[in-house]
């Protein structure tokens, strides 16, 4: 039931942003962009204390009125951000975690494509499919 799924490059530019209500896409762009503040802060504060074992899942980033924003940072500093509606109480931390894991796997598969240059905008159809599935299938469950 995610309303927005995005992948952000190491340099903080968007690689992929998918939103379900497409009419307000720009707002989600802003939401994802602003949450990078928290991601950066969290990553930098964690890496200072323990540098070997960092939990990739960052948890809830921003408590906004309508949406909950969750973050996940891979070891190569690629960021995943999932936005969920606040009204959706079905999704617990564990579900969000597994969503991120799925997303991470899909991203890794996508990256294995020899025709993809790292850093390019993601245009993979299978990745797209998985993200859409994540955004729709959870609604039914």
């Amino acid at each position, binding site marked *: 039931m995610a309303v927005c799924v995005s992948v952000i490059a190491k340099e903080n*530019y968007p690689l992929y942003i998918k939103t379900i209500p497409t009419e307000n896409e*720009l707002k989600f*762009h802003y939401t994802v962009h*602003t949450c990078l*503040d*928290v991601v950066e*802060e969290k990553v930098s504060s964690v890496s200072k204390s323990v540098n070997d074992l960092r939990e990739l899942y960052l948890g809830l980033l921003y408590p906004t009125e309508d949406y909950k924003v969750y973050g996940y940072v891979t070891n190569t500093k690629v960021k995943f951000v999932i936005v969920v509606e606040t009204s959706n109480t079905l999704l617990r931390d564990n579900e969000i975690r597994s969503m991120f894991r799925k997303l991470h796997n899909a991203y890794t598969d996508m990256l294995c494509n020899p025709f993809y240059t790292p850093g390019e905008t993601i245009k993979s159809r299978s990745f797209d499919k998985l993200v859409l599935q994540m955004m729709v299938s959870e609604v039914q469950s």
Partner: protein
Amino acid sequence: MSAVESFTVPTGVGEFPPELICRPLGFVALTGLDVIYNAVHKAIWESFSANRRPDRVPLSFKILDGDHEYPKCRSKRSSYEWYIPKGITKTGWMNKHLNLIPAVVVVFFDLDWDETQWKEKQMECASRVEVVRHSLQGRGTKVAVVLIQKNSPLPPGEDMVAAERAAALCSACDLSAKSLFVLPHSDHLFGYTIRLENAFYELAQGYYHMEARKVKAHKEFLNKTTHQLLFVRHAFKIAFFNELKQDTNTALKQYKVAYAYVSELRAHDTNMLEIKSISGFINYKICKLSFHHNAPLDAISQFRKHVDFYKNKTGCSELAFEHSAWMCKQFQIFGDLFDEAIRAGLNAIQTQHPGFYYQQAAYHAVNRKHLCRGLCHSATVMPDPNPLEDADKLEYYGQRPWRQGHQSIDPPDPAKEKDGIQALQYKELQVDHSWIIIPLLSSAVAQFKKYKSARMKRYLMVQMGEEYYHAKDYNKALTLLDRVTWDYRVERWCALLTSILNMSLRCAYLVASVRHYVTISLELIGRFAHISSEEKTHVQMNLIRVISNNPPEPVTGCPSEYVELAKQLWKDKLSPENSNIFTVEMQNIVPFVECKARFSTSKCTADTPLQLQVYLRASCQFPIRFSKLCVLLNNHAYNDYCTLVDGHTVGGDGEASYSSCHGDLYLTPGQIKMYAFEFVAEPVDVGKKIEITSIALSLGNEDNCCAILRWVGAGGDSASLTNVQEQVQMKRGPPKPNEYDWSNITLDPSISIIPRCSNLDIQLDHNPPSLMNEFYYAKVIITNNEDLEIQNLCMQIGLKEGQENTLEQSTQVFLDEATIGIPGPSRIKNVELTGNRILGVRTMYDIQVNVTQNKLSMPVICTCYQEKSVSVQTVLPYDLSIKMASLKFDVVEHVHSDEPFLLLTDIKCTSPWPITIENSQLLLSDEVKSVDETLQSQLISVSLKQNECASECYCLVAPVHHQHTTVPIGHYSVQWKRTNCEEEGLPTVETTLALPSITVETIPLFIETKIPSHGRVRDSLHVTYTIYNKTQMVQEVEAGMEPSEAFMFSGHKQVCFRILPVSQQVLMYNFYPLVPGHVKLPRLHINMPRYPGVADDLGGRMLPTHIFIKPQGKELHESASG
């Protein structure tokens, strides 16, 4: 806190009355003080009221007249059975208890204990108290009397009169002894005031406690069905009294109770505003007290609960904007509370700070604006009569002015209700929402900046910019948006950047800012903008219009009423008298044209022209023509060579200042164009770097409207400078011929100018290695291999720079002849140092050469340098060893005084070149003398090859010397030079060496032996031993001759004698050799009883041990006869 005398009910929805926001302080009325005419009274009043610091007791004081009328106390009802409340909380109630009904009334009265007219005064005082009591009838307000006295009081119990009169006064005034105070106006007024204050505070607390209990007592009369509102009201009152009492814990508890009651109230459209208002008030109090109790999490969770509960309780749908206004206010006031708590020492974090609440408040304010637009357009006039007339005279908070006190579900008069709604809508239309939104956003920006959320801050700034746009302040919007675009560009959030640029373009159009309009257009056509190609075409068309001095078409989405205004502005801006020439810095934007410049090589000699290439690529929709391309270099002299003017814009047929500068600056989208420039470096730049400082590309006619696109350095804009992706080659496969691969074009912004290669040949004739201390001879031969004549030749010779300091100090260069042009010899002297040194010869000259530049030949004077260096090793010419020996050539460590010894010098040639020793000299010190009269060198003109040796031997004697046992011998100097030196004039080298010191021993005896150099068998040999006594005493000597098989001898076999001081004894012997050869002499033993063992040893060293004995020769005649 300032007391609010006349108050009005806030008319705005969700507004908080000041008496709610302020900290409630117990109210104490002071009467009987004449602050206008009485200085003492004035001082007392000031000590109470002025400069109340936070450490003073929380009370508010007010001066009232003695006969002040306090609000009348209504008679308390004994039963609530038939009572239907008309609202929750009365608007005047808080103010009444804060400012009108005192907890304590203090009666000040001038009265000393020794007052003569005591009775009269006591009466007067009692009557004053009575007046106050009367006015406060029915209230629990405490009354206190303070006697202002001139004299300081005596300690309690001593002043009997005082005690007696105090008791009398108390009973006359019907006052408890605890409520009577004495205030002597002495120097310690402030101290007394503090004590009085504390006493008043105690009284006030008692009063408020009683009031709270009184309210509580009503509770049992209430029933749940009809008195729900009263439950809220009473809980609120109890809480408020407790707050006045400064019992914040109880107050908080009671506010929470009140909040729970409010939540239980049945809400419908008619009372929704009232419920929300009151719950907002109570929520405010709860949050404030929670923050005060340092429980911020409680405050936050209470606020969350509050907001979540009321979020969807919009109430009347026609007045939905009221709900947004109320939500906005809730968030704003909570943000303020949070911020206040932070200022009081609370720590906030990045994800929980006031900024979020301000942001949310702004969001609700925006919502309110939208709702207002949707709902209020029909409310064009205020209905008559105005239903909102009584809006500031409400009896209960949050009620509608046209139906006050009404509590049923349906409005009493539907027509009136409609009018009321219309009036509210009309009023809402008058509100300028932007000025509510912008300050909220601005507060949020400040907070997010503080909590390291730069991106959120930027987002809010964008929103502010949008709001300014809606508020029609286009200039402000433009500046705000301009400030944030850079970050979005650098982080490559193109979608966001595009939306901001679109907004900015509209602003730029509306204010007719040519510069901004062009800059934004440049970027909107560029590769970062995510807009459709039609839009891009539109933007580019407009850009070309502006550049060719025509007003652009209006940007879509601009408010139509401002478009007309903008059209006029554009006409004025682009009128021919105004010239619009401006520079646009390309590193700040991502323009549609990219530029790269490079020098063809990184180094270049002074006699070849520099090649400079500029590549341009446009990514716009359709071709575009630029007017001029300039490359600016760090030496401005070349700029003229690097200018290209488009042939189509200047005059057409091309009469321009530079013949080569006409070109075609017409760029087709996607194609790369290369422009080459060529020029020759000036002599002053030889050895320096020429750098591209910037590239300027002009768009438009310089006569009226022209944008100069300026790249710093050799090109690259905001995107390519920060973006790794654009540096990576994205193409696969080899590049096609005749086509430039953009990503393969590197930026080479600088070129080093090196001198022209010299054709001069330098030869250095010399014979290494050099010898230490010698004048090393080297010949420099310079041959000119140039085709052309050279001028101003000069030559330098010397040690190369950068060698060891000691080398430089120990090397001197001499020049034999200073004529340049003819090879001249030069000598180098090196002193006392072996090892490598590098000699350098450097020549410099000017030459005029012809250089082809742009197919024209032109003379250029070049300065050329040629250098040659050789490494010369220095070795020692010879090795000199010095030895000391006895006359028997035994090497000795020390010598005896007055006994001759030998000094042996041994020169071993170590130079690979033969050396000739011209002379050697022994320079003796005063302590040593030569045995010979004259010292003659034995080595004059001796030539030595490598490893050959030359020795000298000098016989020296050290006279008796009493002071030193170690004496210096002196110096030895050798004059030498290379044997086969070509140059006769070279001076010889004199090397002087200090000879070692010798140890001189003084001995008691000295034996001189006189013996022929050889003997013959059976031929007597005359030997004399002279024994000298060197001491100052008579010496007893025993001498004995040891028998020998080789000799017979005559003389003393054994003798004992004495030698006087500085005297001698001669022993004479005749030896008769018996065998030939190198024969051992019979040994003379000398023994001195005084120095046992010493003399024999001495003798052993001094006496000769062997002699050569020739065999007896045959007679010549015998052999002849035989």
